[in-house]
């Protein structure tokens, strides 16, 4: 069983999709590198930290992207973002069956400032355009850098998010919260607290991700297959009704849990029998235990 967490972006693509099926667009040999990093005397990567292309998933032709967390924390620069947008737009033109985004990113690449911010907003628009065209978009989050910032929003713009416990999903990262609001608000060095708050299990209970899987590439593969299958026969586009449901779920969350300081208290308030046992559970045992307590369809 090979770890998803420990694999590089390309290893994930090669092992998650059908063997030998990945065809990359703008591969490293094309040398489309960041125009900004060189000016700042910083190293570039030949793929700007993201591999995009098409592949077969259990025989189904899909479009796919994988961010490389090792290169600048998977941060989105101008080229990186343009590759994601181009992939999503091409998926629309080619009427793809689905798009699978293997996200691992700290968000905007600060070196590229406005270009990076614009790139992330364009990715959001492209995800919603793909959904409006009837193409399901699925996000996988299981890398050690998590999925933060604007790309955390991108993940929640998709039809489904599949996470491992080790994966993290949030807007501001732990250090950002501690810096802005103080260590009393959030201790970024308390790793157990960080994972309790942003990790896959809490996201699953809160309704922010639709599936929780073990940290293996095979498990993420099955999660992606299941998530795409679940979109069949359902409206793929973002609807006003779905947004209103989401809004109601968020209002319920604040009403029920807004005054609580630690996810352990939240889990207890949800009726989870042994909240303290949650962090030690294997993914499948946890999913079974959480199913009757978790919020929201999405």
């Amino acid at each position, binding site marked *: 069983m090979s770890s998803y967490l420990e694999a*590089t972006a390309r290893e994930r693509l090669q092992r998650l999709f059908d063997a030998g099926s990945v065809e990359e667009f703008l591969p*490293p040999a094309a040398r489309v590198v960041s125009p900004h990093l060189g000016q700042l005397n*910083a*190293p570039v990567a*030949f793929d700007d930290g993201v591999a995009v292309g098409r592949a077969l998933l259990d025989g189904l032709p899909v479009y796919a992207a994988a961010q490389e967390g*090792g*290169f600048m924390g998977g941060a989105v620069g101008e080229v990186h973002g343009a590759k994601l947008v181009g992939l999503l737009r091409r998926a629309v033109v080619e009427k793809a069956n689905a798009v699978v985004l293997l996200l691992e990113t700290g968000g905007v690449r600060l070196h590229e400032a406005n270009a990076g911010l614009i790139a992330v907003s364009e990715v959001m628009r492209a995800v919603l355009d793909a959904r409006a065209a009837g193409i399901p978009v699925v996000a996988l989050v299981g890398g050690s850098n998590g999925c933060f910032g604007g790309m955390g929003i991108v993940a929640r713009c998709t039809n489904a998010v599949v996470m491992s416990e080790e994966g993290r999903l949030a807007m501001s990262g732990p250090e950002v919260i501690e810096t802005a609001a103080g260590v009393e608000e959030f201790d970024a060095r308390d790793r157990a607290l960080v994972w309790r708050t942003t990790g896959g299990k809490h996201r699953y209970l809160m309704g922010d991700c639709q599936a929780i899987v073990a940290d293996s590439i095979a498990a993420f593969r099955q999660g992606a297959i299941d998530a795409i299958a679940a979109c069949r026969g359902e409206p793929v586009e973002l609807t006003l009704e779905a947004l209103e449901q989401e809004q109601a779920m968020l209002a319920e969350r604040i009403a029920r849990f807004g005054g609580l300081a630690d996810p352990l208290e939240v889990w207890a308030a949800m009726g989870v029998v042994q909240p303290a046992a949650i962090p030690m559970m294997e993914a499948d045992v946890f999913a079974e235990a959480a199913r009757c307590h978790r919020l929201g369809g999405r």
Partner: protein
Amino acid sequence: METLTYRFENGNRRLPKPAEVVGVVSSGNLEVLIEPAPLDGACSIEIKTAAVGFGATWQAVMRDFHERWQLTDARIAINDMGATPAVVSLRLDQAAETMLGGPA
């Protein structure tokens, strides 16, 4: 950043496949892009490294690599973020093995 280029002649092993990339540009690591190219039989290596001032060490590591592999008509490009010589050697071997399907 510093850019270093090396060119080695008289190799005899051709690369049988299109480009491959191994490694990731992260702290203490590097990526190696290896591809066949018409270079009059030479093996050219271009390095962009964040660690400035280690040209002599790079030259020795690249010379050893060429002695091990004897590549011809091969273009290698490296983006480096401060990898140690041992890591650089291993990555280069990984790149050549990925291309040629076995150890030197």
